[in-house]
């Protein structure tokens, strides 16, 4: 795949989310150099600020950082779960990347979400509707993309569940009766139901036991290789980042402190915080 400057899939520029009422000094008084994301003058919280990066087709980008560093905020802003305070994001398959998707109407955002993106949350309850069966959850995504043929929906859903190694005979059971790992795999099936070019993974393996973690990670890597989906993987777990990602962004206090090739960051971290992060690997 050719990766030149203009071949990007997702371009994010100056993405910012601030809670509360900031003043003109807020951005200057927060960040890693102050070791705080709370503005001392206004008490507003800078969840993330000045986030800029490009993601290329088929590439896997990692975002690491301690909890509260704003890494989840970034993907949730991009998946329209939250409203941005400032910044822009362009998605190449949507109007050739000419428009800021974060400024679109709710209806268009939903179109983008259903056709061009998928999201896997840390907690399956955020991504799945536990009142619907697992098949119904996948059907929701397919219906949102305009498929109203039950037989087609069911065959697609069973193929997805097969791919993610969920027993197909449990398709008409509710995810509430599944184990955590299975719920996570149903969530992944739902996220990739419409073959989106872009997938967000927010702490997908946190809270799963190690053997299940390994299988979920295997699955994600397989999907990435088979389908060539570009992914943004958010994790505080460096081994997940090492296993899945090509490039990594290190965040602290809502800012990017370092970015580069994953191997490079893990072998030779430049920023003091990255060094701390790598050295605290068990």
């Amino acid at each position: 795949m050719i990766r030149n400057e203009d071949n990007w899939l997702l371009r994010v520029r100056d993405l910012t989310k601030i809670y509360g009422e900031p003043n003109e000094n807020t951005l200057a008084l927060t960040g890693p150099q102050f070791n705080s994301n709370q503005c001392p003058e206004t008490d507003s919280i800078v969840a993330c600020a000045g986030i800029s990066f490009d993601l290329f087709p088929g590439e896997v980008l990692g975002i690491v950082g301690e909890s509260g560093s704003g890494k989840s905020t970034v993907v949730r802003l991009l998946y329209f779960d939250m409203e941005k305070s400032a910044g822009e994001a362009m998605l190449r398959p949507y109007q050739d990347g000419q428009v800021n998707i974060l400024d679109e109407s709710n209806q268009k955002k939903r179109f983008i979400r259903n056709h061009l993106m998928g999201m896997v949350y840390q907690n399956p309850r955020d991504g799945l509707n536990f009142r619907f069966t697992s098949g119904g959850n996948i059907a929701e995504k397919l219906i949102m993309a305009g498929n109203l043929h039950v037989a087609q929906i069911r065959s697609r859903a069973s193929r997805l569940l097969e791919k993610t190694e969920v027993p197909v005979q449990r398709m008409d059971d509710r995810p509430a009766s599944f184990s955590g790992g299975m719920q996570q795999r149903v969530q992944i099936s739902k996220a990739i139901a419409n073959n989106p070019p872009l997938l967000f993974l927010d702490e997908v393996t946190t809270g799963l036991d190690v053997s299940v973690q390994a299988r979920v990670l295997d699955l994600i890597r397989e999907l990435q290789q088979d389908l060539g989906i570009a992914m943004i993987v958010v994790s505080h777990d460096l081994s997940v980042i090492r296993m899945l990602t090509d490039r990594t962004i290190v965040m602290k206090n809502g800012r990017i402190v370092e970015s580069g090739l994953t191997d490079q960051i893990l072998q030779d971290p430049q920023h003091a915080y990255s060094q701390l992060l790598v050295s605290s690997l068990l």
Partner: protein
Amino acid sequence: MVENRKFVNKYNFAFIDEATKKEIRRKLLKAIAIPGYQVPYSSPEMPIARGWGTGGLHVTLAIIGPDDVFKIIDQGSDASVNACNLREFVQHMTQVKTTYDTGEATIIQTRHRITEEELKEGQIFVYQVPQPEPLRGVERYENRTRQMHGEADYAKMWVSLYESFVQHGDIMLGAGYPVMVDKRYIMAPSPIPKWDVPNLNQSKALHLFGAGREKRLYAVPPHTIVEPLEFEDVKFHPENFKGIPCYKTGYKKAFLDELYFDDGTQHYVVNDSNFLDKLLEKAAPVQHHNKYLNPSGS
């Protein structure tokens, strides 16, 4: 002595004061302009409790004039308690002519049925609606359902139909089957049986819906496309009476009531009382045309 005429009548014509009637009419106009859209309205106090037909009564009293001919049915019957009492009230407050004859009426108020006889141009059909929100079953918050209607975000509704099919082998919705109005809004047609739902499509009459307790009005103007929600391969179908005839008339193509006689035997009878009377008098009433009633398309 000069007689004080102002207080001769205890109540304004049609009970509700003119300003409030005007407000209801204005909301009705809005509802007709946006078919299937639920318009909030004042739902003033009535001498019956909200939830007992106040919505339908508001609509009827707001639009009725001295020349109207009024008919009211409850579950197809002119003679059941709800219908009798409301008929008496409307007649008392307006002195309009009342009738049982579907063809003669200009305003027909109903609870849970559409008349079996075809409706004509100029007739107004008024529904008493208990729950105007078709999405209530899948989303409990009003602000969310309003947003879903605004953005035509109906995936959850469709998933609930899918789930129903998966778990029961059919879409297990009986009365109040959700419909898509004018290819835009999903609407609750009030708890009419599935049998009646196709009769809303391209109807010649104006259909007005009033939900008094929930304070919502909505409408289906004449000649509007009304489609029951169905999948490409799992279709909507009305109640199937398996060719059982009405025990009084032998008629097969009408919505039937199940009766048990004292000896325990089961019988079926045409539910619409006026239609039944006309059949018994050999009056040959004209029925609605829809593709389920006349599969050949005639």
